[in-house]
């Protein structure tokens, strides 16, 4: 599909995901879901995995979606979307934007099988992952996206493993387009969604969606925390087209990780009496590695 530069850069606000959902105040995922739905437009089918998004947006009888959505299980959003895409092909219907959406677990853990299969088979589906770095819906348990050092209910002493690099894993499946984005830069996010939807084949967009409850910060800081995640180097923002990294968002002024960590309750245990624990140095190392690897 060809898409003009003007269309690509227009900010969309259609409220195809609208008020009345039960997300916490300041929820990054709710914001992201609306931005994605609006960027995609009315001709969209959303296949949503179980998780915070599904639970707060699709209760009977007042769901907050205004585009058709299909929710099945926690781990099969990608497979269900594959089925919808196959049906549209078989019935000669469409074109239509099919967006499979899921959180940490649905993408990288329990849902990894389905997403890997969907990528490998080459379905024309966009998969959007809302990364809030834990299993938030079930009460903030650790996932493979939980960053090093973060406290969750199942890693009360701090997580000991590094974040799984899902964007690179997705790219290694040979899919044509991968991107990472955050909710603070809504122009960039919507542009990436539109770019993805203009490409045939499986696409993957990874969105950092801060969770005030799980990360331990005020709802009003959601946008600021995204910025700090980018500016410390902990969350690189880039695109990958046909496996090659492009459009890396460079950091104007690098910020030490403490500034990002100190705002969040889930890292509070690393700053007992104001003294940073050795994990903080390790986290800074991770940030530095990202900066070097992606040339931020």
């Amino acid at each position, binding site marked *: 599909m060809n898409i003009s530069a003007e269309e690509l850069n227009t900010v969309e606000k259609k409220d195809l995901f609208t008020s009345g959902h039960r997300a916490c105040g300041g929820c990054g995922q709710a914001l992201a879901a609306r931005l994605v739905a609006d960027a995609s437009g*009315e*001709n*969209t*089918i959303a*296949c*949503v995995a179980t998780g915070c998004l*599904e*639970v707060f947006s*699709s*209760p*009977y*009888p007042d*769901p907050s*979606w*205004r*585009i*058709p*959505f*299909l*929710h*099945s*299980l926690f*781990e*099969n959003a990608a*497979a*269900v*979307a*594959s*089925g*919808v*895409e*196959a*049906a*549209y*092909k*078989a*019935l000669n*219907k469409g074109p*239509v934007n099919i967006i499979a959406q899921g959180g940490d677990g649905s993408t990288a853990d329990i849902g990894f*099988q*389905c997403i*890997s*299969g969907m990528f*490998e*088979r080459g379905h024309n589906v966009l998969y959007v992952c809302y990364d809030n770095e834990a299993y938030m819906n079930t009460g903030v348990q650790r996932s493979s996206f939980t960053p090093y050092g973060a406290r969750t209910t199942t890693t009360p002493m701090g997580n000991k493993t590094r974040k799984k690099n899902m964007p690179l894993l997705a790219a290694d499946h040979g899919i044509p387009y991968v991107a990472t984005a955050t909710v603070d830069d809504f122009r960039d996010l919507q542009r990436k969604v539109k770019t993805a939807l203009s490409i045939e084949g499986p696409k993957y967009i990874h969105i950092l969606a801060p969770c005030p409850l799980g990360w331990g910060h005020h709802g009003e800081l959601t946008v600021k925390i995204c910025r700090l995640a980018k500016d410390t180097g902990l969350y690189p923002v880039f695109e990958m087209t046909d496996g090659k990294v492009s459009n890396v968002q460079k950091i104007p002024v690098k910020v030490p990780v403490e500034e990002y960590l100190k705002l969040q309750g889930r890292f509070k245990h690393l700053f007992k009496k104001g003294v940073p624990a050795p994990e903080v140095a390790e986290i800074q190392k991770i940030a530095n590695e990202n900066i070097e690897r992606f040339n931020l």
Partner: protein
Amino acid sequence: MLKQIEGSYGVAEVVAMCRPNVISAYPITPQTHIVEDLAMLVGQGKLDAEFVNVESEFAAASVVLGASAAGARAYSATTSQGLLLMCEVIYCIAGMRLPIVLTIANRAISAPLSIWNDQQDSMALRDAGWIQLHAEDNQEAADLHIQAFKIAEETHLPVMVCMDGFILTHAYEPVDIPEPKEVDVFLPSFTPKHIVDPRAPKGIGLYADPRFYLETRYILHRALEKSEDTIKKVSSEFSKAFGRDSGGFIKTYKLKDADLAIVSMGSVVGTIKDLIDQLEEEGKKVGLLQICSYRPFPRQAIYEALKDKMNIVVLEKSVSLGRGGILASDVRWSFPRAEKKDRNISSFIAGLGGRNIPMEDLRYMVEKVEKEPVELEFLGLKKELISDKDL
């Protein structure tokens, strides 16, 4: 047209004539020939469908769920481990009222691993809200698929067509394969009730809080009960269209004057009929009640058929471990309390893991229950392999 054809291939040919739009299946013995044949038909252009080579049964079920929700006629096949893997999705499909047809090539469940036939797998999912139909032979297996699509699309309930793995799937029998035109007349194209479509946006898969969930379950239960009418209707329509009896709720064989009634389902019914004929020559009056629709459970029909039979034996290829015979339990429940008192309902478990059920074992079973009721017995149990110490 009559063909000497392997059971799987028969099913594949017939399913192809039902014009599914999306087929998605993951290979698992003994269902493999069905999916291979369908893949060939799609590949050769003889079947216009999307064949999705998924990475697991779970994905297969999810793909057909998505396809059906998008308005396609969807089909898959599995068995045993695969069926259990897609268990979550099976429940989901029923709750969403999507008219999907699934072939179950009944097979035993691991551990220990066994690729041979029993009916534990479809039993494990009897509560999921699907219609379950059991085929007696390859002809019925093929015919039931045509009926299944029609039943599913009229009742908005998914249908499992169960056929014994290897015994039916890999056996060559003469099967009358209908003409595609005949199938088209019998089975009109799919008009879905609710789909995801941007032109009329709907939400499928909303969650129900405690205010509503109970009612959804009640509705599904009632829908299953009501589907009895459709099952019977479609079976009789099939008879008229194709000129043979097939499917339906229950079937009986020489039951009317029988002193002993045997209740069973699946391919073993064939052997039982042979035994009944032999016993008849020997002067014994034994009859068969064959269950075709296991879900919805034909409680009333069983009661009507067996109400004056005081000696009943249930033979089944599954067991509820720690409790006993599943079908037997269902049959016992079919009689009101008052009418159970003098009635013997014996329970025999047979054929697990592909164990052969020879005529001798069946004779033994008949002779035993003629003397006394049997609470629970594993038919053909090799006691010499069992040590009571190592349990």
